[in-house]
């Protein structure tokens, strides 16, 4: 059963060097409360798996700027000049991945798959160090699964069963990451006393270990 905690309590699960998945696309659907608490600690050397490294002064971007990320597996860093600077100076390892392949690798990690085959990246740098497998005469890259020690995701609504629901374009990686991590912390803007409508649940509560009440209580 999901447990309600504060963002400060969530930080006690973190250790140096862990692999973190953090949901969000730039600022949209990006959890921020746990990140703000992490910034108050000495914890560091994380490996970040996320769509992008945000902007310099928001969510995931703040972890980069604070020097807490040793390596990032992401699809885009261009919106955060600090990531670009650290990367050019060799102070952070960046593993750039095509966005759709990154999403599938996260899915594979949570879905018990040994990987997925995609034509994306054939003939480019994205194919470096990856196996090429031919199926019916066509070449595909083998993209291997990704796992994390902790996933921190955003949700617009949650109920006390840990079920998550999303509004607008906030689903992005938030719905993919929970099955792929050992510990899952969800920051929900609104906590519903009633169970969410089962027809609308995007993340089943069994994937979510901890819920943080974002305290919006019905105001978007």
């Amino acid at each position, binding site marked *: 059963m999901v447990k309600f905690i504060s963002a400060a309590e969530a930080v006690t699960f973190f250790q140096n060097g862990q692999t973190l998945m953090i949901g969000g696309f730039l600022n949209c659907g990006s959890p921020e409360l746990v990140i703000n608490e992490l910034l108050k600690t000495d914890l560091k050397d994380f490996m970040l798996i996320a769509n992008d490294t945000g902007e310099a002064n928001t969510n995931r971007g703040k972890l980069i700027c604070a020097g807490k990320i040793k390596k990032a597996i992401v699809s885009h860093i261009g919106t955060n000049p600090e990531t670009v600077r650290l990367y050019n100076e060799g102070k952070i390892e960046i593993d750039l991945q095509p*966005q759709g392949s990154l999403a599938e690798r996260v899915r594979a990690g949570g879905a018990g798959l040994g990987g997925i085959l995609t034509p994306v990246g054939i003939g480019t740098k994205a194919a470096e160090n990856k196996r090429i497998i031919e199926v019916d005469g066509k070449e595909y890259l083998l993209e291997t699964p990704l796992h994390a020690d902790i996933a921190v995701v955003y949700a617009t609504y949650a109920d006390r069963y840990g079920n998550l629901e999303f509004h607008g374009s906030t689903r992005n990686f938030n719905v993919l990451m929970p099955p792929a991590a050992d510990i899952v912390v969800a920051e929900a803007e609104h906590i519903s006393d009633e169970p969410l409508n089962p027809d609308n649940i995007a993340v089943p509560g069994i994937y979510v270990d901890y819920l943080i009440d974002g305290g919006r209580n019905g105001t978007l």
Partner: protein
Amino acid sequence: MELSKEQTQEIIARRVAQEFHDGDVVTLGIGLPTKAVKYLPQNINIIIQSENGVLGVGRYQDDTTRDCHITNAGGLGVTLNAGGCFLDSLASFSMMRGGHIDITVLGALQVDAAGNLANWCIPGKYTPGMGGAMDLVVGTKRLIIAMEHTAKGAPKILQKCTLPLTAVHKVNRIITEKAVFDIASDGLVLKEISSYSSIEDIRASTAADFRIELLR
């Protein structure tokens, strides 16, 4: 005549807008490609897909009134058109990779005569990342590159790209302020010469061989 940056972009955007058919599902790169929407002919309605998970992108929303949970891939607030829906990143990229996008328009750093595209990395100088571009160009039915013909006077249409590639043999058409080129199996074909350019100007600013087969 010397064109300003704005004039150049408008010429390209207006020409790109002629490429769409009513009902096309379209993905547009950030910047110049997105400007084409302004110049869509009447009676042509397109469905814009945005990689972050919006099918049916509407108009821009200003910051004070907007629903901050609906953005485009550039992070800007947008509306959702009637009939549209939201997607997670898996569904969004399945749509692209699976061949469900009719036309994709992207910018480029370089394009070459074999239809190769480079638009995500200048080693040692500028590496924003490929984002969704590699997935998008592999799956789209038609790939159009919309870009200024040269960068600070240097040709961007080359015999062979020198920058890291985004995709191999995928570009169908190149639209610039000077010309429209198609990529055929035997190389570049000049299809249109802009009224702001000339064959001499195009030859001087294009670093690739091409044959001429003008449409008009």
